[in-house]
């Protein structure tokens, strides 16, 4: 009840800065369980590190001189690398919004819970779509759920998103999308007119993408148990070429291309919620990418991988490339296309456009020798008109995405932690 509480045994003096940290009356026993667990894991790692001879450790035994700062920094960084490579574990007791954000927590959840339970060679690559071999032909299968809020936004609604998102997951797997399923979870009281508008948008998007919705499901839940309408779609497509695509195929000398300006969808959704009192002339980029992909694949035998830059944005894809292929991805901030409106809004909100979702943009990794033809093929398609090479693949340091900033410095680009924008798609 009293300001600063009953903690006044200590003398309050400006001089004691730093000393109070010594007060250990209440220490670990007050900490949540995971802190103790994290510290245990830390001790294990430290013990492991001690067991392995350190390449930087040129000292003779019995002469414990302090290491020069840079060498010590390298050692710390190696320890962190080891920690990041260790088996993912979900430390939380409950699901938080971070688990749905597409960043580190999502990856940990998928690997530690889903992959752990379902593990099989088809699932293991964790690509956007699984590749199946059926009677000698190759198929791609994918599924995605859509919970975007608001349901209607400039440039589209949850309906186009549900079709385009699944079409794109098939397209970037190198498949020609054929059939979709549609499952609806609808909240009691939802206006039928709104449902019609959503379904009409789905029909139009399916027509544009050349796919048919061939089966579906409808569930209605009590008021308050869902937010209007959620949609799940699954899709199958056929893979007509013989190439192996996947982010693990990236190798030094390759280039990284994005198909257009990034971040439009995420910023549109964020502004459409009306919580920020910022207005900007942006619309969602939701679009089917199958035509763009077909043009790129036809013109460029050296396409290694494609991903559509949805949740987690371009930065997340680049990290997947770096991790799965064991390479370094070097991108130049100046070369990454971002609309001024998006950049302005992101700057105001303190968000990096590299992490903002797109719904009609892909990132391709292409053999460096074919960069020009790949770029020309993409630019020949309306959805790839402002395609750009944003970076290269290098070999070292492996597993890292480096950004050469517009300012002329260099920094790393990591997976996103936490969730600046939930329910973006």
């Amino acid at each position, binding site marked *: 009840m009293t300001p*600063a509480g009953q903690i006044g045994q200590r003398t309050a003096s400006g001089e004691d800065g730093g000393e109070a940290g010594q007060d250990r009356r209440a220490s670990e026993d007050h900490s949540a369980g995971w802190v103790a667990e994290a510290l245990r894991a830390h001790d294990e790692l430290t013990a492991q590190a001690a067991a392995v001879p350190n390449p930087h450790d040129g000292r003779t035994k019995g002469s414990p001189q302090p290491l020069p700062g840079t060498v010590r920094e390298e050692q710390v960084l190696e320890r962190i690398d080891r920690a990041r490579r260790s088996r993912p574990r979900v430390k939380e007791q409950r699901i938080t919004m971070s688990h749905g954000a597409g960043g580190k927590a999502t990856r940990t959840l998928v690997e530690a819970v889903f992959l752990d339970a379902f593990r099989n060679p088809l699932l293991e690559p964790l690509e956007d779509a699984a590749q199946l071999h059926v009677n000698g032909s190759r198929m791609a299968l994918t599924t995605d759920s859509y919970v975007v809020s608001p349901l209607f936004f400039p440039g589209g609604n949850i309906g186009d998103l549900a079709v385009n998102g699944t079409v794109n997951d098939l397209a970037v797997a190198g498949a020609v999308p054929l059939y979709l399923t549609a499952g609806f979870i609808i909240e009691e009281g939802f206006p039928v007119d709104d449902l019609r508008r959503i379904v009409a948008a789905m029909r139009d998007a399916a027509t544009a993408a050349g796919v048919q919705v061939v089966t579906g499901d409808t569930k209605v839940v009590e008021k308050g148990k869902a937010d209007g309408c959620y949609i799940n779609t699954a899709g199958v497509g056929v893979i007509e070429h013989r190439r192996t695509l996947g982010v693990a195929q990236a190798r030094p000398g390759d280039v990284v291309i994005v198909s257009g300006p990034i971040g439009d969808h995420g910023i549109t959704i964020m502004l459409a919620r009306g919580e920020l009192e910022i207005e900007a002339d942006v619309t969602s980029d939701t679009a089917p990418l199958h035509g763009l992909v077909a043009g790129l694949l036809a013109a460029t035998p050296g396409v290694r991988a494609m991903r559509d830059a949805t949740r987690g944005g371009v930065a997340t894809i680049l990290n997947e490339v770096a991790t799965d292929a064991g390479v370094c991805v070097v991108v130049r901030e100046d070369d990454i296309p971002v609309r001024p409106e998006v950049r302005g809004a992101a700057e105001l909100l303190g968000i990096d456009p590299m992490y903002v979702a797109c719904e009609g943009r892909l990132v391709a990794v292409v053999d460096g020798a074919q960069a020009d033809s790949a770029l020309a093929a993409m630019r020949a398609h309306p959805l790839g008109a402002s395609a750009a090479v944003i970076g290269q693949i290098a070999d070292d340091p492996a597993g890292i995405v480096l950004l050469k900033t517009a300012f002329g410095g260099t920094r790393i680009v990591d997976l996103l932690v936490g969730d600046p924008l939930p329910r973006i798609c």
Partner: protein
Amino acid sequence: MKFVDEYRNADQAHALSAKIAALCEPGRHYKFMEVCGGHTHTIYKHGLEDYLPESVELVHGPGCPVCVIPMGRVDDAMHLAANPDVIMTSFGDMMRVPGSQGSFFDAKAAGTDIRMVYSPLDSLKIARKNPGKRVVFMAIGFETTAPSTAMTVLRAAAEGLENFSVFCNHVTIVPAIKAILDSPDLRLDGFLGPGHVSTVIGCRPYEFIARDYGKPVVVAGFEPLDILQSIYMLMLQLAEGRTAVENQYTRVVPWDGNIVALKAIGQTMELRPYFEWRGLGFISHSALRLRAEYARFDAELLFDVPGVRVADPKACQCGEVLKGVLKPWECKVFGTACTPETPIGTCMVSPEGACAAYYNFGRLSRQRVKEVSRS
């Protein structure tokens, strides 16, 4: 983009970098503290250290709003939020700050009504919409955010709103700087003054640093060129044997501060006799609470708040990092037990925290960066 790109110009950065290098006395090592976490973020986000000679070292200071919130205050806030009548509202940065029983995010996942707001005025809106609930705003931050809390309290008073209150954790920067100056374990050559705080308090409050401690201060803006220019201004003072408070961020910071904002703070808040800072301990007259006239908006008086001091986990060295004694990577648990996903210490939480900035942007030794940049 206008008003941004001109402060990120690489050519000008090279020119400033050369001027800074020219001022370096051979054999001398320079250590400047950027007080504000916003500066730390800019330095790492733009790779600014690539422009500095090796003899110029930047030390990260305590000016990160969520980093200095002690565990006990987080626990108090969680206790408040657990009240079934309460809707707790907070800035996004606060959501992942660990208390002894987890963070706001964990409590939210367990069913506690905690909402993220972008402005304290959003909390007022929530209060108006939920007359049957008691809405508490978790107020954090330095003098930068205190005026908006003050204006919100004044608005609530004018409207006669009865279901809104503030859990006030506002702190003031000058006592923290003084604590660092008095701390025996750090030798600094000067300070990059906090730009945003100074838009409110102006530059005069730092005069004692130059006068009594003989250290130069340059109030700095938040774009990378602002920071480089400010470092140059500090180096110039040292080279010319001067120590003064200078204002690099003149386009935003008036020398005397923002009188209207200061009045709003003064009208609604007063200094606490002392307040605990995470890692720095108790510092006298370093934080604000609501004045008695506004007691009806003071969550600490309206609710039963435990007010128990909780020590940080032993392994956490946030205090040393906040004082600039340790580099983030020198902390025992940096990057292994303590990561941005599961932070143990506050410095790993906020994008302005030195540890999070280093982990997310800089986690690569300068030597390796140079090798890659050349290739």
